[in-house]
C-alpha cells in the first residue's frame, strides 16, 4: 500500500533473532523469523555465530523490543547469562529475552530464574511463539 503511513497502533514490533556461539544449525531460527514476519513484526535476523557482545550491540542499534536467542550447541548456560548481564550493563534490561533450542528442564528453570522470559523446546507451535512474543515485547510509550 504505497503512501500508507504507520500510525501509533500499527507500529511494528521490532525483534532481534540471533544464534549465539558456535552452532551451525539455523533452520529453526529462520522458521521462527518467518513466522514473526508473517505476524507483522520487523525481524532483524542476525544469524549464526554471534557473540553476546555483538547481540547486545545489535539490540541497541536496532532499538528492538524483544530478543530471541536460538541455541542447540549446549552452551546455553554460558552464553544466555552473558547476554543478560551485558544487557543489564548497557542499561537495556527492559528488553525481554526469550530462547529456543535444546535446553534441559533443569537448565530452563535456572535460566527463567535469572530472567529469560520464555523457553521453547522442540515441537513448540509457531502460534505459541508468536503469541508469547507479542505478550512479552517491551511496551512503547
Amino acid at each position, binding site marked *: *500500500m*504505497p*503512501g*500508507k*503511513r*504507520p500510525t*501509533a497502533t*500499527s*507500529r*511494528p514490533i*521490532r525483534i532481534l533473532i540471533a544464534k549465539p556461539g558456535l552452532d551451525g544449525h539455523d533452520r529453526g531460527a529462520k522458521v521462527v*523469523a*518467518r513466522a*514473526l*514476519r*508473517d*505476524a*507483522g*513484526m*520487523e*525481524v*532483524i*535476523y*542476525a*544469524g*549464526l555465530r554471534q*557473540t553476546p*557482545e*555483538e547481540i547486545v*550491540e*545489535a539490540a*541497541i*542499534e*536496532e*532499538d528492538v523490543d524483544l530478543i530471541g536467542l536460538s541455541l542447540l550447541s549446549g552452551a546455553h548456560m554460558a552464553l544466555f547469562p552473558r547476554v543478560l548481564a551485558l544487557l543489564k550493563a*548497557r*542499561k*537495556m534490561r527492559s528488553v525481554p529475552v526469550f530462547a529456543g533450542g535444546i535446553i534441559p528442564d533443569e537448565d530452563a528453570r535456572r535460566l527463567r530464574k535469572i530472567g529469560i522470559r520464555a523457553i521453547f523446546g522442540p515441537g513448540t507451535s509457531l502460534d505459541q511463539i508468536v503469541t508469547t512474543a507479542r505478550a512479552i515485547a517491551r511496551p512503547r510509550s
Partner: protein
Amino acid sequence: MSPSGRVPLAARRILAGDRATLARVISDVENRAPSAIPVLRALYAHTGRARVIGFTGPLGVGKSSLISALLGRLRAAGRRVGIVAVDPSSPFSGGAVLGDRIRIERRAGDDGVFFRSMGSRGHAGGVAAATREVVRLLDAFGMDVVLLETVGSGQVDVEVRTVATTNVVVLVPHLGDEVQTLKAGLFEIADVFCVNKGDLPGADLARKDLVELTALTPARGAWRPRVVTASAKEATGIDELWEAIEAHEAFLDADGRRTAGERERIAGELIELVRERVEGELTVALRSDRNLQALVDRVASRALDPHAAADRLYRGRRPRRPPAR
C-alpha cells in the same frame, strides 16, 4: 539550535555520542512520532558533513557484501561509518525480515560504526519514507560516510537519488544482454557501476556492455559513470570502487555542483513535506465533504462518470478567488 532556542535532551545526547538515544530517535522517525520533530530540527544545523553513498541494484547482487568490504577499508582509514540498509516490508502483514546485518563484518566494540536496518513500510522507490531523516541523524552523530543500501527490488529503485550524493548501481554477470542496459530507471541513476562477483565467468562481457552504455550516454554535466569490476568474496576491486566513488565526490566539489545538487534536493524535500500535509488535510476534508455521498450515489448508478464527479468534488473544495479586474 532550533528556532525556539531550546535543545531537546535527546538531541544533546546524540551530539554527545549516545548510541541508544540515536537508535531510539531513529525509531521515532520511522514511526512518524511527533516527538522526533524537535530533535530533528535541533540537529539540522549539525548536518551536511557526511558523504552519503547509495547502493542499489537487483536483489542478490551483493550490495551488503560490498558495503561490508568498503566498511573495512573505510575504518582502516579512520573514517566513521553509518550504514542504513532497507529491506522490503510485506504488503500483506506489514512484517519484514531485515537480513543485511549478517553480511557485515566489523570489529567487536567498534563505536565508529552504526548499522541500522529499516523496513520499507509500504513506501515504494527502494528506500523508506524516513530514510532521509535517518541518514541525517547519522550525519549529526558524527559519521563521515553514510552507506545507504536500497531494497533491491530492481529496476525502479531510483529514489535513492534524492538522498545520496553518489549512487553506485551494483550488477552481476549474466543479468541480461545489452538491451537491458538501455532500459529506463536503474541505469539512469548510476554515478558508478559496479560489476560484483567479478570472479565469475561473464564479468568481462557485463563490464564491456556497461562501458559501451556509459560511452553512449550524453555526459551529465561532465561526469561519465565509471565502471568497476569487483568481487566482495575475493576482496578484489574494493579499492577501485572506493576510488571511483571518491572521484565522483571530488567532481561534485568542483564548480559548485555539490551546492547545486543539494539545493535541488532541498527544494524537492520542501515540496514533499508540504505535499504530505496538504494531502493529509485534503483527505480528511474530502472524506467528510457533504457532497461526497451524493456524488458516490450518482457514479454508482451510472448517472455520472468518476472524472466528472471528481471534478465537482475538487471544484467544491477550491477556495474561491475574487474575480479578476
